[in-house]
């Protein structure tokens, strides 16, 4: 892009510092996938928004058609992780997932 006011050689130069800061993110690999979901238990984890109550049953039906012995644990078991109790509910997830012997999870809806 051509600047409307080209600089002259008399202008001062500025040595400017990087305006961002260090990322402090510890990288973790994704969990191994499960090619055959038959006999596996899938958690539905929902934030209670954006029509998940309609979407989850349709997704469940789609997966069951391909893996008839897949089992599902509905979102009511895990709570709304986007609401007033978000932090408590997320903190409680590991125990609940273990209690239900969950093998995989579908999490929604949003970003």
């Amino acid at each position, binding site marked *: *892009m051509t*600047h409307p*006011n080209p*600089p002259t050689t008399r*202008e*001062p*130069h*500025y*040595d*400017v*510092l*990087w*305006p*961002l*800061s*260090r*990322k*402090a*993110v*510890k*990288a973790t*690999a*994704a*969990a*191994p*996938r*499960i*090619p055959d979901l038959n006999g596996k238990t*899938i*958690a539905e*984890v929902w*934030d209670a*928004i*954006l*029509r*998940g*109550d*309609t*979407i989850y049953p*349709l*997704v469940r039906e*789609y*997966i069951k058609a391909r893996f008839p012995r897949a089992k599902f644990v509905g979102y009511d078991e895990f709570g709304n*992780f*986007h*609401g*007033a109790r978000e932090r408590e509910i*997320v903190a409680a*997830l*590991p125990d609940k*997932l273990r209690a239900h012997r*969950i093998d*995989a*999870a*579908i*999490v*929604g*809806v*949003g*970003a």
Partner: protein
Amino acid sequence: MLRAAAVIEKLGIPTASIIGSGFLKQAEVITKGLGVPLAIGVYPGAPMVDSEEVLARKVEETLAPGLLMGLTGEAPRAADAKAEPAAGQVVFSGTFDEVQEHFHRQLWTDGLPIVPPTRERIDAFLAYTERKPDSVIRAVPQEGREASTLSIAVTGVMAGCRPEYMPVLIAVIEAMCDPAFRIEDCGSTPGWEPVVIVNGPIVKELDFNCGQGMMRVGRQANTSVGRFVRMFLRNICGYRIPPGAGDKGSIGQSFLVAMAEDEETAREIGWPTFAQDRGFAPGENVVTVHSVVAITSPIYSGGDRAVDHVQQWAEVMGHSFTYWAHTGFKTGLWNPLIVAGPSIAKAIAGEWSKDEVRRYLYEHVKVTAERATHYARMTSTPTFSLEGLVKDGILPPEYAASSDPQRLINVIIKPEMIGILVAGDPGRNQSRAYMGNHMQGPPTSRRVELPRDWAQRIKAKI
């Protein structure tokens, strides 16, 4: 939402997340900050506006296959991390215009020219704190970058702040880093904006405008501190609008200049200041950060009785805020903030305490249960139920006192959630109210730590 998926994935349980296609860029930014690659199934478009048939077709053809692949196919892999400069490293040399172009191309500006962050300018800011440049308050979402003293100074320089604002800037970022503030939600679709509220002797010492035109761009302290907040969210947190990503404010709003209280008037009329209401002692320097998702029209009121004014506030707040109050009902929290013009505050204070004002507003701003439920369901929450929220202990019992959908419920959940700040034009009878975005960005305060020789240094500046 992806934060929950990351928690599960890190347990060794494969996840697949349901993401609307409009959120994919934001999801990419968030995932990098979470440190674990996540599988995604895409819902094309916006589910809230699709018919049942269209929704079913999109699930069958796109979303469900994507989710299934996410659980059964190859594990997602993290994109190769790009090497980045070290904090404090010189990354560019050039003229003023060249610096602007470079920063603009890198998405490091807010669209306005920035002050070039040179070592000398940054050092001048750092001289106003005893903290080391590499001291870190915490790593902040969405990119997981460190909120360091140096990053605060660099952003302050770029935003056009003066070096002596540095103690205020640190306190602002400390408040925003408090988990209660939920900085991780600063890019949510309602597009709320944090506003900084300043109390204490620094209002005068740093020349904050608490009088006429207090919320206009034009006074350096108010303006540059407001710009600093938005620039920090953009550069350090990673909330960028297109062509960047991470800020999903659907329409959004501009940065808000910082507010300051007219403490002389507050003292004169016998009301505690906003900071005193928040538990600080008179004379303490305090900043509070507060989300703003909506602002009323100017509220003009006349009369020499308290009720003449507060009734007007109740009506205008009711018209402006009732629609969005359902988000507060869902979370059990939302905070209205009233900026009371000094002449109005004086008239009210002749009869009522601040708590009496709060009580009146609490009792007089109402909505029917049917409307609140309708608004919630239109926004995003198909399962919204006042009865359910009462049962879960999120709302007080009176919200489910009857099953009549036309029953009136309080828009303001508790009187103490209302903030009152005296500021504005002493020569006019105007107030205004600001709405916080439910549990996102509730008022969060920090004491401002001044350097030991502050008094001499400020005196030398004047």
